[in-house]
């Protein structure tokens, strides 16, 4: 059976696992960057701009394919595709399309930069990104952040946040998290569970540094078991304990971390639901989640969404957005299962 030999060639080392992927955007089969570049050139030149074609092409190509299209476009049109799209599009559609033309890491780095630069800080966005990205993703983000903005991510985050909140974010950005291992260390699970309890619910006040070091340094599979074990020591589960012990941005960060360890896709589904049901400023959140997860796990986010809210994400998007913005989001989500 030559099949196995072929499959083995496609596997990447996931021993102890990187997270499985459930993208909603997959590489287009039969991909021809020149043909796509031509279609986009025509769409841009069309009077009134043919947004539909741009949406149809770009939402059905992966980031790597979009890059090839950009090269092909530059060859034939002698213009930079991104500038051309910026000029041709506007509003929320433009934001999404320009986001799609960035690599996932560039997109995250830019989003982080926007949340901290200037007066004030968009803590919600900063927390969402820093607390949901994996260790490996954060390593890449740091690199790209430095290339793009000539600054160290750590310095910028420290400059814009304070207290224990800053300490937690910095610990995450230092990417000291253990790699997952297939070996289960039951002793350590128990010690960590007890330490979390002793540092929090058990005492008056909270020993935040202990919480920070356990939650930012242990591997995710290990922590999942730690939170299970935690329930045998504490009358409240980990999320309830967080709400009781700490407040404000620190609470929000710990909660996002724990929710992502337990079920990252459900976390994003909840976020999307909150963002769409509230008005106005939340478009940024919806755009960010859909664009940043479409090649990672958006498909699973859709299924968690449906299971949890009883209605598909696609339907909710149709109800709460309109026009080209709606079309581009639906293009990225793909059809309902």
């Amino acid at each position, binding site marked *: 059976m030559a099949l196995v030999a072929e499959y083995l*060639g496609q596997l990447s080392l996931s021993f102890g696992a990187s997270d499985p992927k459930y993208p909603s955007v997959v590489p287009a089969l039969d991909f021809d960057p020149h043909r796509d570049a031509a279609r986009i050139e025509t769409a841009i030149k069309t009077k009134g701009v043919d947004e539909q074609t741009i949406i149809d092409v770009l939402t059905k190509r992966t980031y790597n394919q979009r890059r090839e299209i950009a090269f092909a476009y530059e060859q034939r049109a002698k213009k930079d595709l991104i500038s051309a799209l910026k000029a041709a599009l506007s509003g929320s559609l433009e934001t999404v399309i320009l986001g799609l033309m960035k690599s996932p890491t560039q997109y995250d780095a830019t989003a982080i930069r926007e949340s901290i630069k200037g007066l004030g800080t968009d803590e919600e966005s900063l927390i969402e990104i820093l607390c949901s990205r994996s260790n490996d993703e954060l390593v890449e983000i740091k690199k790209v952040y430095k290339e793009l903005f000539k600054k160290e991510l750590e310095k910028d985050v420290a400059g814009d946040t304070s207290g224990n909140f800053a300490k937690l974010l910095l610990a995450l950005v230092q990417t000291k998290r253990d790699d997952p*291992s297939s070996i289960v260390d039951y002793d350590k699970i128990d010690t960590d569970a007890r330490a979390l309890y002793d540092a929090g619910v058990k005492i008056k006040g909270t020993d935040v540094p202990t919480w920070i070091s356990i939650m930012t340094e242990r591997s995710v599979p290990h922590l999942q078991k730690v939170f299970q074990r935690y329930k045998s020591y504490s009358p409240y589960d980990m999320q309830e304990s967080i709400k009781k012990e700490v407040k404000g941005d620190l609470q929000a960060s710990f909660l996002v971390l724990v929710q992502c360890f337990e079920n990252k896709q459900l976390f994003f589904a909840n976020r999307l639901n909150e963002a769409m049901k509230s008005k106005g400023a939340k478009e940024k959140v919806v755009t960010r989640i859909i664009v940043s997860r479409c090649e990672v796990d958006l498909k699973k986010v859709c299924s968690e969404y449906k299971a949890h809210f009883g209605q598909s994400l696609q339907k909710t998007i149709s109800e709460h957005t309109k026009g080209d913005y709606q079309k581009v989001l639906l293009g990225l989500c793909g059809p309902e299962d």
Partner: protein
Amino acid sequence: MPSELENAMQSLITVFHSYAGKDGKNTLSRRELRELMEHELPNFLKSQKDPAAVDKIMRDLDANGDGQVDFEEFVALVVGLSIACEQCYQAHLKKYAKK
């Protein structure tokens, strides 16, 4: 006449022993594991971009940390790869079923 499955299990054992026995012990040293993977799993090794892949696998497999991988520890690798291949196979079936 052994069944297909019995043959598969027999192969697991004979392949393991043909590499493990080379240094007189019936377990895989790091070098024997590397030889086994280069000869028996070349497609898998080729797709790893990380040259330290074998070392990582060795570390993970050697559950008791004695520098040797016994059959039980080795079989964990085969199981993991089989599960991953089966998932590819399922996706393959789905693609053709849709047509």
